[in-house]
């Protein structure tokens, strides 16, 4: 059975819906939440799981992820009056708040930036580097990640570990899609060089 492109995106990345209907539906829910905080519940229900996962992948523990997730939604509800609907998914705004909360946690407690690497998420990255994936290279890649700056780490984990589209990354980081592509290209090239030098 042939799948239509829009449905394909929704299937691959259910958490980042870009259909016009869903975005319009969200706009209505956001307006309702601006008038009554309790109307924020549908948005919370919809995005809690993916925001929690996003946070959990970047912190040390489940409890800390839960705390930051809770704080993320409180902050979102506090600032929702200033939210302006620009046709982008509401989730990208939530991700930015979550990332700010994570960064604040890093700074205030001087914690190490956590990067979750699962072996089954690596083949695409090696494919992009046009390099064969071996156990040795996998280990080198893990060490190489420690030599990247925070922005480069975010690019790699969102694109290759979390399988996000370029547009979603652009929305979350609030940069253009072409900028995302350029940064991704440079980061992959840097990793490839670091691996080859190892």
């Amino acid at each position, binding site marked *: 059975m042939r799948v239509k492109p829009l449905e394909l995106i929704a299937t691959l990345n259910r958490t980042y819906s870009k259909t016009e209907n869903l975005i319009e539906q969200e706009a209505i829910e956001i307006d309702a939440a601006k008038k009554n*905080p*309790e109307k*924020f*519940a549908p948005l*919370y*229900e919809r995005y*809690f*799981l993916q925001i*929690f*996962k996003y946070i*959990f*992948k970047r912190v*040390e523990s*489940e409890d800390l992820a*839960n705390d930051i*997730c*809770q*704080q993320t*939604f*409180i902050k979102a*509800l*506090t600032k929702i009056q200033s939210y302006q609907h620009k046709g982008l998914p509401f989730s990208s705004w939530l991700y930015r708040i979550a990332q700010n909360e994570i960064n604040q946690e890093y700074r205030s407690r001087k914690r*190490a*930036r*956590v*990067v*979750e*690497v*699962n*072996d089954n998420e690596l083949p695409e990255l090696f494919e992009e580097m046009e390099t064969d994936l071996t156990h040795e290279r996998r280990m080198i890649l*893990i060490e190489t*990640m*420690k*030599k*990247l*700056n*925070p922005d480069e*780490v975010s690019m790699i984990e969102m694109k290759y570990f979390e399988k996000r589209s370029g547009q979603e990354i652009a929305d979350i980081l609030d940069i253009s899609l072409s900028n995302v592509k350029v940064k991704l290209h440079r980061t992959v090239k840097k990793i490839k060089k670091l691996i080859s030098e190892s």
Partner: protein
Amino acid sequence: MSNIKIERNRKAPSDEQILQKKDFDSVLKGFQNAQVSKKWYQSTKLWLGVMATACIATVVGFMLSNNKTESVDQNNQIAKDTETKENVVLEKSNAQIFNFKNSEGALIQTENGNMISIPSEVANSKVEELTLSVDESGNQLIIKVLNGGDIVDLNKSIALIQNNENLANIELLENIEGEWKPTNNNGTNLDLGEAFPAEREITPISSEESSVEFGKASGNTFELDVKNFPEFADYKGVKFQVDPSEKDFIEDYYFVDWQSFELKEKNQQYYLTLSRGGKDLTFKVKPVLNSAEYSKYLASKKSKQKSNSKQKPIDFKNLGFTIKYNEANGNYILIPESQSLESIEFTDSKKSMYKIDKNGTYKTVK
């Protein structure tokens, strides 16, 4: 190198486990707490208010810091001025104050029943408003004619008719610098000259001291030159405090090096105008005394109130004049009968008429 910790193949909680952590009520509660705390430190109005206050405080502080650098000199000058002022004010606070017109003179009855006759044009000055200060406490009698706080030289004699228990002594004060000159008890050769005019209605001038209401000094004060205010002449260390009703007055104004101070009186209310840099600030002020002087003032005020409530009868004895009561207006009329003073007649407040011979014995005539 980044501070990065790699979590390899970490076991993530299942979706079911994650969803169990959902707690929207906590989010709402956290939101409400954030709103409460927002009220005091995130309020736009608050910060605007804080910024405005800070700006005002900065400007005022800058102004005052400039002023205070010169305030010591000013205070020294004030102290100097105060010392100068105190050289001319009377040191006694028990004096009675009477205002009269130089062109008219005055016949003044004191609290002890003494009578002082001041002829017209007594002061060789064009000043019209003069003040007579009389202190008859402590078995002494000191009178001074003042123009503001300054003693005025006299060009005519002032007559004093002392109200003793048995005999009346008539004395003349020929010059303010001199002593009272007693006349003979029988007054045989007494020449009163202009001290008493031919006829004058006696309208005793009551003490005006009660018209000045002093407060007790507390906190900062202005020390001003009050020589043009005779009502203050007999009080030491009169100072001024701004009336609490003056909401525009800033306490630090007491320390500003003002270029000029101008005190004015209107309807028994005093107004102080402070000037600096071409700008004038006028505030309602009240006279105040330090603790010791204020106690004296209160005692004197109480004594005078008691005295005023008990009208003294005019009971002159051994006068060389006839004092007649004018029923039309309730005043007494003093008429020189004779310069020889063989005998005199006078009436008292009870309209009794007495006649006293030259030996000082008297009898009731009517």
